[in-house]
């Protein structure tokens, strides 16, 4: 029964997170900002419309949004939320989780390249560059956590964490892994130190530029998938930093969602206080995140 809770919760509440981030940024900027549920309105509006396809595109362009949404959903079924177990779990599913996200990204890049637009090609190139650097950090951080808990499944891994595990020996390694995951979370979701989701100048956009040519339901699929991805990587991070397992389904769900909303508020504050990094410095930050993850892995290997 408890395994059935996380996925509907994610499907329903994921578009809320970008809304929270927007509201926090608007508050910091002294503006009113868009409504909290803006993404829901956008999705509803886009789904009612028809899609326009350029004659130069092939089936790849049409398959892109579907594959992106499907792979993100599949990744979500493997993911526990705090105390709530995942729908599916088997040893090694953390690798599958990482590569399902990679599959979605691959098809988004293919669809962007399929349009033949110079801007989309540039955005695709940047997206691949970021993710090639972020992926080692993600995998090494997950490997460090797996080594520390002795579990190869995300479910067992997050179930073995407890609030004490952050303050006992081995805790510093977990905190390092969390720091690496935070950088990956920001990079993969095109948040501010890496990419400004609000700029609409093609030269500076990364994620946004790749979805310029999608319209109607396709665009809705991509927007929804990126909200789900925010939820997925966010719950990786909050599950590590707020490992609460009270036992009650309702309490665990509330703790998990509360953690994610807190994370969204934190991201909003971070984005309000920081400027976007110069493009050449991005690799530095991602290399530093990888270094943190390697350090975490070495520490837990040593401690075992």
């Amino acid at each position, binding site marked *: 029964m408890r395994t059935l809770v996380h996925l509907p919760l994610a499907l329903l509440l994921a578009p809320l997170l970008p809304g929270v981030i927007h509201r926090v940024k608007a508050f910091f900027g002294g503006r009113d900002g868009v409504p909290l549920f803006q993404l829901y309105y956008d999705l509803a509006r886009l789904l009612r419309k028809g899609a326009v396809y350029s004659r130069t595109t092939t089936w790849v362009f049409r398959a892109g949004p579907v594959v992106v949404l499907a792979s993100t959903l599949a990744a979500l079924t493997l993911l526990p939320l705090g105390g709530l177990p995942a729908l599916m779990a088997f040893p090694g599913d953390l690798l599958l989780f990482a590569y399902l996200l990679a599959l979605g990204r691959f098809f988004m890049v293919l669809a962007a390249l399929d349009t033949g637009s110079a801007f989309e090609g540039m955005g695709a190139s940047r997206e691949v560059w970021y993710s090639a650097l972020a992926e080692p950090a993600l995998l090494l951080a997950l490997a460090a956590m797996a080594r520390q808990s002795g579990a190869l499944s995300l479910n067992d891994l997050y179930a073995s964490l407890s609030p004490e595990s952050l*303050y*006992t*020996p*081995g*805790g*510093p*390694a977990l905190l*390092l892994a969390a720091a690496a995951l935070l950088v990956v979370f920001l990079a993969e979701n095109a948040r501010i130190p890496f990419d400004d989701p609000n700029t609409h100048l093609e030269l500076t956009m990364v994620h946004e530029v790749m979805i310029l040519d999608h319209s109607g339901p396709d665009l809705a699929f991509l927007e929804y998938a990126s909200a789900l991805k925010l939820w997925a990587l966010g719950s990786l991070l909050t599950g590590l930093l707020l490992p609460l397992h009270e036992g009650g389904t309702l309490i665990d769900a509330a703790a998990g969602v509360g953690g994610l909303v807190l994370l969204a508020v934190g991201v909003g504050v971070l984005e309000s206080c920081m400027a976007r990094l110069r493009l050449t410095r991005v*690799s*530095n930050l991602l*290399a*530093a995140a990888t*270094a*943190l993850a*390697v*350090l975490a892995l*070495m*520490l837990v290997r*040593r401690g075992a």
Partner: protein
Amino acid sequence: MSFWLEALIVLVVLSNLRVLGASRIDACVRTVAFQGVLLGLLPLLAHSDALTVRLFLQAGASTFIKALVFPWLLGRAVREAGVQRETDPFVSYTASLAAGILFLAVALWLGARLPSAGAEELRLLVPVALFTILVGLFIIVARRKAVTQVLGYLVLENGIYTFGMAFAEKQPLLVELGILLDVFVAVFVMGITIYHISREFDHIDADRLSELRD
């Protein structure tokens, strides 16, 4: 091993990585000063069961010199010599970070091979000390400016100090203070030298000094 000791050791490693990855000289100086504070706390946490006046004295003296006097001397040298703020590496920052990770792996491998002399909970200190020494050497070789080479020397000395921490009970206080005095004099002299080099040649690029002829 207690959580705090492990956190402190991790912070020492992180400060080393920061010295490798930072592009500004003043950021490097601040990081080395922070490392001095960390190393001052180290003996108190590592030997928290047997605190003696001697340990406090040692910690206080090294913190005072490493976290206050050295940064002040270096900051003065940077100001007087009018150094540009970039560290001017031979090896790029990302490559330096990668080298740092490699050093850490080598140090852990080496530390596991060495017979552990100290107590069980101090075993992590030896690899971290080796790592710090390697990073110091790397900074001396891979950075162009004389100021950053002095910083590398300081990191190197921090590594030797950490190594001594693993055996703090057996090491005479006199030896520790002697090393501190040596390093102090060395940094003092280097500060003066940097100033003179920059006044003679309008730069402190140590690489270009090798082209000198009479």
